């Protein structure tokens, strides 16, 4: 009797140990991933509060002897030329990203709704065309778009960027929104229409409010995509006062190659808006991706 009980409990212990083994492996792995993710960002922050002299020492100062916010003050000071440039780039990025976001929501909402609700001939073809677009790299479109923009006089204007970002953001925006519309029961609209609403009224009054989370998510995606875009901005814009942040920072620091604290401070401030936006609206962001891609 006792031996049976003993082996049983030993088996239980062994099983628990095995489970614990997996759990510990998972924890150690997570710790490793956390370090891999966070250490570069922490090093960016530490470098950004060093003086130029402290940053270029070997071995490095792990924590600066005299932490200073001088780099941030320089970048945010509208009085000196560096600050002027940086603030202008910041404003340009904000303007382009905001306009792109608003336009892409306006265009994507009806398209996504149609893809979700109607079965018109060519619907599947169109939808896959939309998805396929996502596969082609910017470089393929650069030369012809550059020529096109020159022909319609948009080179060196923010209009060229907005038009381009709008187009290239659309496939994803439509895809994400379609996922949300698929989950809104058609019966709700049907009920409204029985009560005398037109299709458009049903759309505005029933579907739109229900799909607000999807619209928010789509808006964040468009904004972050436009904010971080580099290659078109790099190609279409050449005047210094029109550059967006990624290109502006690159231009600036290819001239001032040793100002590492300044570069890190600029990288940090360029990341702040999108990271904050993402952290605040995380819920929608992650949900949209999963609605669109996983459940499809």
């Amino acid at each position, binding site marked *: 009797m006792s031996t049976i009980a003993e082996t049983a409990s030993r088996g239980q212990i062994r099983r628990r140990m095995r489970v614990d083994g997996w759990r510990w492996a998972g924890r150690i792995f997570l710790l490793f991933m956390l370090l891999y993710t966070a250490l570069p960002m922490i090093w960016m922050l530490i470098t950004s509060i060093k003086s130029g002299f402290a940053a270029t020492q070997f071995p490095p100062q792990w924590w600066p002897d005299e932490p200073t916010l001088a780099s941030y003050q320089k970048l945010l000071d509208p009085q000196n030329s560096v600050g002027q440039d940086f603030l202008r780039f910041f404003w340009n990025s904000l303007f382009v990203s905001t306009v792109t976001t608003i336009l892409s929501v306006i265009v994507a909402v009806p398209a996504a709704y149609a893809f979700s609700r109607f079965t018109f001939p060519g619907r599947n073809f169109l939808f896959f065309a939309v998805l396929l677009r996502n596969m082609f790299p910017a470089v393929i479109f650069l030369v012809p778009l550059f020529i096109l923009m020159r022909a319609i006089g948009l080179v060196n204007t923010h209009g060229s960027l907005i038009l381009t970002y709008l187009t290239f953001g659309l496939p994803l925006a439509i895809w994400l929104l379609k996922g949300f519309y698929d989950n809104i029961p058609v019966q709700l609209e049907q009920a409204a229409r029985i009560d005398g609403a037109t299709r458009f009224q049903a759309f505005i009054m029933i579907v739109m409010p229900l799909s607000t989370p999807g619209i928010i998510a789509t808006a964040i995606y468009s904004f972050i995509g436009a904010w971080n875009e580099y290659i078109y901005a790099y190609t279409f814009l050449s005047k210094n006062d029109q550059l967006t942040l990624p290109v502006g920072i690159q231009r600036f620091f290819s001239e001032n190659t040793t100002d590492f604290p300044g570069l890190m401070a600029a990288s940090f401030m360029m990341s702040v808006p999108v990271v904050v936006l*993402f952290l605040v609206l995380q819920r929608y962001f992650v949900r949209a991706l999963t609605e669109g891609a996983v459940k499809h």
Partner: protein
Amino acid sequence: MTIVTGKAEARRKSQPGRSGALRNMWEHRADYAYVLPAIAVMLVVIAYPIYYTIELSFYKTPPGLQLRDKTFIGFDNYTTILTSEVFWKVTWNTLIWTFGSTFISFVLGFATALALHRDFVGRGILRAILIIPWVISAVAASYIWKWIYHSDFGIIGAVLVGLGLTDRPPNFIDNVSTVLPALIVVNIWREFPFAMIMMMAGLQTVPDQLLRAAKVDGANAWQRFWHVTFPHLRNVSVVTILLLAVANFNSFIIPWIMTAGGPSNASHIWITHIYELAFGRQRWGVASAYSVLLFLILMMLGYFYVRALSGNERKEGGA
């Protein structure tokens, strides 16, 4: 829902004659109004450039985009590319870059998703931190890592010297043999969170009852993963891997900012090479021919992508 669409289309196809299809389109004319704005924008910005790229690939073009002076040369641009040594070097780099980044990002992302699946204190915060690299600009990421890899003041070099592993800090991104792996590490840093989010979402669709049933039947953790969880995630995995592969194949910013293809083409991938040919050396014709080749490869990838997606649909429609 989707299965209904499929049936409807099958019925439509069986209708005889072309007038049937046209009538059908006419009956649905109002539906097109919803899609029209999207289609119009995309025709201008997407269809025209594709056509133009194909046309340009058959021409010899003068520098400076004086494109009225171009001359037709047939397939010469293509033979120039396929016989050049740089082409094969760059293709090899692209393969290593794409497969290396995709595979490792996927494995790390999947493993992180599994480790995060169980609830624990601080899980939400941890997940948010892990996603941040994916949100920040690739330009910022490139500069952060360029600084980390810096040959004189880089932190990795300093740690290696501090541990006594080398005498001098190694120069990762100016070395032909280490530059590509070094850039892949940066790329994975930005991309594994995407795989993580996708797989976390996928994990939520695995039915708990099945896992519990398997546990009751005596399956151990590994068996439960391999026989229950993993088969459920096959479609999500395929979609995630394809999306990652396409994104990696198309990536530009990290290699461009960190090395601009150097040293001696060791980190040139197709996209950066095309960019340099077009905007650096102004060989628009050759660059366009490259783009067309790229296009063909992506069409092939796209075929698998669409097949994976419609596989998803069929399964869900049937279930």
